[in-house]
């Protein structure tokens, strides 16, 4: 089938992208004036210890040998070891990545459920009250700096109102009395799987502020994108024809017009999903969210290059796959699009 041919071709290209990214991060890691061997040994090392660490880490070999070793390990699924904590990075990622994914996915869900309906209605009733207010939300969403908004929300919902927790994934009392059993690493899923309803409610409450902070940009973008494409689509003759056929306004807006208007919005949403993976860094620090952002922030502060490289690769993989997924989705939604 054509579609499979296309997917295979795109995957081959993805390999090329991943190889380039790995080469670039690898070279940057070696060029930067920091000695991984010294970091490996810890504070106050002796020259002998450093020399030994250099041998253990293979840093005495030529650069291309080091790279090939690195790639060979990658192919075995070994992302290396943190030079700071001496922990296997893969194991760390298994705990941090789901936390971030949960945050980002929840944020995306907010962007879809808030952004798309607001965009549709504001495009349908142009210059109405809803349109003006949702455009204000959109502008605010795309232009407000994340860290500032996050702090503001904490001040309001934790400080003044006391409705929502300040940060973290669950309350300390939950970790003590109703600990979340790690299965997938997604607390919302794990608590449901184990029937731990107290923890489910608590994790939901903890998700709201950081996810919303992370999603404001995507919400704003989604509203604006959906609105402008809706305005265009609603001018089309097939919409007049649908009205002439007596179809109700709800069907016209949310089915007949939206399926046409949603394609550019999905592209934007997909890209902001990847953007959120890195955007999560700030949000996680503000909300002490034990995710990829917190993890990579510590790695950057400690010049822990194996970790930085691993996270970069993971984000690249997401980027490549989301893009492929978006192209396939577009072809599925619009029969006129051919994959080629």
């Amino acid at each position, binding site marked *: 089938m054509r579609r499979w041919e296309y997917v295979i071709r795109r995957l081959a290209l993805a390999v090329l992208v991943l190889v380039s990214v790995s080469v670039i991060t690898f070279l940057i890691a070696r060029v930067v004036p920091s000695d991984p061997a010294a970091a490996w040994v810890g504070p106050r090392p002796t020259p002998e210890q450093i020399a030994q660490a250099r041998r253990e880490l293979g840093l005495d070999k030529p650069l291309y040998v080091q790279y090939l070793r690195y790639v060979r390990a990658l192919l075995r699924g070994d992302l290396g070891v943190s030079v700071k904590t001496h922990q296997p990075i893969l194991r760390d990622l298994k705990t941090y990545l789901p936390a971030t994914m949960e945050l980002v996915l929840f944020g995306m869900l907010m962007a879809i459920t808030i952004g798309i309906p607001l965009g549709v209605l504001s495009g349908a009733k142009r210059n109405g009250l809803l349109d003006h207010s949702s455009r204000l939300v959109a502008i605010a969403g795309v232009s407000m700096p994340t860290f500032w908004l996050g702090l503001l929300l904490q001040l309001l919902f934790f400080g003044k109102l006391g409705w929502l927790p300040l940060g973290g994934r669950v309350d300390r009392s939950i970790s003590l009395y109703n600990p979340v059993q790690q299965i997938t690493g997604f607390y919302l899923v794990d608590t449901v799987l184990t029937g731990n309803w107290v923890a489910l409610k608590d994790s939901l409450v903890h998700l709201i502020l950081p996810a919303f902070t992370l999603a404001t940009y995507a919400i704003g973008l989604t509203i604006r994108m959906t609105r402008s494409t809706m305005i265009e689509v609603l001018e089309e003759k097939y919409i007049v*024809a649908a009205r002439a*056929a*007596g179809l109700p306004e709800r069907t016209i807006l949310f089915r007949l017009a939206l399926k046409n208007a949603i394609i550019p919005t999905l592209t934007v949403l997909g890209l902001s999903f990847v953007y959120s993976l890195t955007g999560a860094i700030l949000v996680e620090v503000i909300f002490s969210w034990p995710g990829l952002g917190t993890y990579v922030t510590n790695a950057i502060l400690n010049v822990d290059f194996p970790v930085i490289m691993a996270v970069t690769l993971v984000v690249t993989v997401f980027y490549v796959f989301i893009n492929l997924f978006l192209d396939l989705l577009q072809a599925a939604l*619009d029969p006129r699009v051919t994959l080629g």
Partner: protein
Amino acid sequence: MADVLVCVENLHVRFRTYAGVVHAVNGVSFDIRRGETFGLVGETGCGKSVTGLSLLRLVPPPGEIAAGRILFNGEDLLAKSEAEMQRIRGRRIAMVFQDPAATLNPVFSVGEQIMGIIRHHQAVGRDGARRRAMEMLEAVGLPEPERLLRAYPHELSGGMQQRVMIAMALSSGAELLIADEPTTALDVTIQAQILALLVELQRSRRLSILLITHNLGVVAETCERVGVLYAGHLVEVGRTPDVFQAMKHPYTQALLAAIPRPGSHGQPLPAIPGTVPSGLERIPGCAFHPRCPFVMDVCRAEKPPLVSVGEEHTVACYLYPQGDCHLHGARA
């Protein structure tokens, strides 16, 4: 008058634009009888499409119906609520448009579109809607309806698309079909087929058709009666043969004279001097007077009423004896 389905009385439609108020339709009155094809002819911008959309109350903003009555089966459509109108659209009055490629939704299959309309208007399940859709596609002369249901609009030819549109329009048993330039975007041979289809459907379903067109040939072939529209005014109404052979209004005469005929090769076509008014400026008196070769003082002063000039033939022109404007004058 025998079995009138639609009666449009003194319809006024205007558009409030930034440039000013555009008077698109100015006091148009006509009847459509049950089972007849009524043609509405005129140049681009004369208000014929807007008249058609008015019947469904779908004049796009900033347009609005400013005055008049539209009686459908004796009920005034302009007095109905939006919810009531939605039950009339598609179910009792349907419409097909000029450009079938643009009137079909590109991202839904033919089956999804036609079945969506059927299921909205009729209490049928998926299978029932499917059967009904296939019947309709067959009724409009499309082969292999089963396969067609799965096809997307861009995979069909223009003629097939228009047949699908007609099938969709008539799928819920409408009594009146408004056909707005249904053949203009099609090849000449396909045009003839679509017109033949409309005539056939009209006979088999006792359908009334309002055929909106600028093509006088199309009118001659399909319409029992015709109304000639100029700048939002109905200037002449009558049975098609009467209007075409014994045209009375100077505009109708000029329009028919401008049709190229065999034997007139090499001679310049007679054109109507001047241009069509934009609708922004209001022309006092008869709208055609600035371009009329027979203009008189009275034409500049007062709008001419419709007067009877023959059986079922009325014209809005001072060239014909006035005072005879009883029943026919009020509405043609």
